[in-house]
């Protein structure tokens, strides 16, 4: 098929325009964060920062409770992801390797659970947590985040377990391993990349979660970064430099993780019809 010069140029032009459009907000966040305030509140935007300053980052990092909130976010995220990985590993193994009654029904249940409208359930969750005297605590957050990511973790891991050839497991069992040993020594090491990729989505969900922490934890010492970030601008009186520095700090770990693991994770994800 021959294409005219014009036919080759326009898709590339559109691609560049789209690239700029998609990247610009991310670029602008980082650019603003590094620009001196004079360049931020300029009548004409300074597209490429020439003077670079770290003062906005200093300000964000020294905001009240910043390190407490970082610690809270990290604790809640890591604990909930680990918790759901352990629980999911058992379930995924059963769903991928064993035949039993009700298996199909359970898979459908997890698919349904994956689409649970958590955003709309927060009033009921608030009442339950309050009745158990656990408002302003990281424990319910961790538990609920673990369950939020659990169905997706199970469905994705199921794909990874199924991808390990059954023969490997069987030959280990022929060599005298029990089924548990075969799992620990043969399947588990092969699952490592799958576990990494799966946990990425758990990380993103837990790291970003907003509605639940908004309603459950009014005490700032028990909040997490998304809530802090959403209130940052008001608290700092439209200081866009500091606000963008705070956004950058919050977004950076996820952006890095995502780019590193994206390919693997996306192919694993397409395995279990899911949407958060």
């Amino acid at each position: 098929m021959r294409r005219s010069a014009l036919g080759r140029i326009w898709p590339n032009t559109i691609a560049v325009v789209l690239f700029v459009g998609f990247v610009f907000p991310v670029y602008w966040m980082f650019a603003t964060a590094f620009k001196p305030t004079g360049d931020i509140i300029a009548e004409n935007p300074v597209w490429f920062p020439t003077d670079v300053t770290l003062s906005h980052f200093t300000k964000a990092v020294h905001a009240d409770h910043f390190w407490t909130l970082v610690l809270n976010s990290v604790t809640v995220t890591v604990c909930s992801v680990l918790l759901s990985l352990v629980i999911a590993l058992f379930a995924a193994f059963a769903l991928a390797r064993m035949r039993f009654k009700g298996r199909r029904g359970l898979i459908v249940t997890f698919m349904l659970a994956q689409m649970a409208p958590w955003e709309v359930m927060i009033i009921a969750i608030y009442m339950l947590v309050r009745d158990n005297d656990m408002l302003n605590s990281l424990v319910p957050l961790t538990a609920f985040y673990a369950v939020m990511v659990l169905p997706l973790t199970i469905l994705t891991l199921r794909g990874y377990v199924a991808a390990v050839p059954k023969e490997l497991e069987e030959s280990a069992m022929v060599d005298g391993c029990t089924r548990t040993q075969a799992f620990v020594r043969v399947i588990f090491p092969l699952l490592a990349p799958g576990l990494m990729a799966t946990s990425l989505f758990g990380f993103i969900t837990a790291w970003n979660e907003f509605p639940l922490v908004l309603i459950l934890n009014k005490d700032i010492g028990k909040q997490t970064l998304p809530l802090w970030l959403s209130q940052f601008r008001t608290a700092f009186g439209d200081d866009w430099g500091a606000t963008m520095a705070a956004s950058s700090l919050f977004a950076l770990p996820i952006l890095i993780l995502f780019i590193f693991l994206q390919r693997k994770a996306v192919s694993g994800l397409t395995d279990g019809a899911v949407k958060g």
Partner: protein
Amino acid sequence: MSVQTEGTDTAGGPAVRKATAAPPPGGAHAGPAAPARRGAAAPYLLLLPALLVTAVLLGWPLVKNGMLSFQNLNPRQLIQHLTEWNGVANYTEVLGGSDFWHVVERSVFFTAANVVLIMGLGTLIGLLLARLGRRMRLLLLLGLVLAWAMPVIAATTVYQWLFAQRFGVANWVLDKLGWHAMADYNWLGTQFSTFAVVTVLIVWQSIPFVAINLYAATTTIPRELYEAASLDGAGAWQSFTSVTFPFLRPFLYATTFLEVIWVFKAFPQIFAMNEGGPDRLTETLPIYAFVEGVGNQHFGVGAAISFLTILVLLVITSYYLRMVLKQEEDEL
């Protein structure tokens, strides 16, 4: 949820799926009788923790939500831990008032506008990806992945800055393009313009998922189909309508449903942008339930609104799952 990082089952599924072999005929793999019998309970035991936590932390709040919606639960009852059943009073109040129906109407329009934009632009960009050369494709993919990965609250904050009244880039560009009325425009000042900003944000964040998955799906279309079509004298447009589109149709259906569900329950973007303002005019159903229930402390009424919203979502979700399950009947 939360993360907009999800997948659909499509023709573009990974090779992993193929490994889900058919069950061994006649239980050929079952060992000696005794371990087999002992093994009968094993899958249920392995699944027990997952089912237990799901039932307690997902099932119980759903039931609780239903129960709360039949209770008179205001600050007094809340503080004194009183349970006052009031039948369907919350529902008659909600369904009888005009507020609720305004919010429903708004939510439907908001969802429709977003989904149309996401699916339309996402499909076009997906097809563009398929047409680009390797380098340009990687460049565009990089841009899409960055937008996709951006945490929701960080993205919302950035959009507040892009559309800021003073020194915001959007106003500067519109002014330079000759629309001088926009020079100091307050985007969060009216219902329509606030929705416009939220829509740009949601569409920007949602397109990558559609475009990348659609592109992945197009790579699985067998080349022979195009060759056959061109032998039959089909032009570019005809080969699109007779080969590409029919092949992508199941994917497009499934993704549209996912986007409907996702946009309909979008919470952080709208709330963090302007808390449902100005004047509560950008409250969609989830925000409305939150503001009525928690903000105004009418927990019972809020629960009733939540419950109605959950019902709507449940209907859409079950439709979606039926469709997906039909597509992969043999793979479960």
